[in-house]
């Protein structure tokens, strides 16, 4: 679909290739975070910040190529917004990785299983977003990918409910322990919301091109 609009222009191809790379880096970052959470290795979460920096530079390239004249003007804001949404997902993942390093282990142990499940879903949902972007280009069934992303998001919502239920039962004696665990859960569970929004935006782009 998008390929038809770009008509094979050099700048457009560059943007599309860079968006694909941007999404692949997001997949790597969520995968790396998942591994850190499942192994409980706090030090290995630094890979998220490294990948976020790499992604940031790709994002700048995408935006400047678009401003150099890639794509017809009516479609430019839509593509920029999609890229920004993916960038927000990087930011929130980086925040989750940061908080993870400062968690109180005793409190975290109570919700460890749920967090590991969410990290796995986050990794899979990002992979699906990348597949969804490919199907926008190849005229695949984007609606189907969008639905699968919504199913994943619902699963994260249910896990968030379980986490909240467990955390409400414990006494928090230290302000920072409470703040860090709350922030961590917020960042971890909100990534899927952003991916869902980005996926909805892809669908809007597809509809607007019809």
């Amino acid at each position, binding site marked *: 679909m998008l390929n038809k609009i770009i008509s094979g222009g050099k700048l457009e191809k560059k943007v599309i290739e860079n968006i694909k790379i941007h999404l692949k880096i997001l997949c790597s970052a969520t995968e790396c975070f998942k591994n850190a959470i499942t192994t409980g290795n706090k030090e290995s979460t630094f890979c998220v910040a490294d990948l976020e920096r790499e992604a940031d530079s790709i994002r700048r390239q995408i935006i400047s190529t678009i401003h150099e004249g890639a794509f017809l003007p009516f479609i430019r804001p839509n593509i920029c917004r999609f890229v920004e949404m993916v960038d927000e997902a990087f930011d929130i993942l980086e925040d989750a990785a940061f908080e993870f390093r400062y968690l109180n282990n005793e409190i975290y142990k109570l919700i460890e299983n749920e967090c590991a499940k969410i990290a796995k879903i986050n990794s*899979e949902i990002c992979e*699906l977003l990348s*597949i969804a972007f*490919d199907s926008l280009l190849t005229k*695949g069934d984007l609606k*189907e990918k969008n*639905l699968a*992303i919504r*199913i994943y998001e619902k699963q994260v919502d249910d896990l968030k409910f379980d986490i909240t239920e467990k955390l409400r039962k414990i006494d928090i004696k230290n302000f920072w322990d409470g703040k860090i665990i709350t922030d961590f859960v917020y960042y971890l569970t909100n990534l899927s919301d952003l991916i869902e929004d980005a996926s909805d935006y892809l669908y809007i782009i597809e509809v607007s091109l019809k």
Partner: protein
Amino acid sequence: MNTKVKEIMNTKLETIKPEATVYDAIEKLVDKRMRSLIVIPKDEKDVYGVITVRDIVFKVVAQHLDPHKIKVEEIASKPVISIDKETELEHLIKLMEKFNIARVFVHEGKEIVGVVSLLDVMSASLIERARRG
């Protein structure tokens, strides 16, 4: 579908004692937003059972019985139908169809470790379809 039951099962399980009242079970189901509870074996010779919303509606509510006066063991189904966590989804679907059940418990050895519902199966198949690209 090569997916195994352990990949999609829900490990959130709630139990109830057989001598508890149906009213206790209703409270637990509402509070935990669940549709079934595992009924713990009475002794070593006993087996796991299950009490579902369906059991409560058809065997207590529809019969105009007092849930405070009925014990869980009186309406629970025993033994619970369960499958090994390594079972493939295709086999699970056949089992659900054969017994006309919406939910199957998952065991690891003698222990019940999860539950899979029809909705979980449908979600897994939709996700797998989408992931194929």
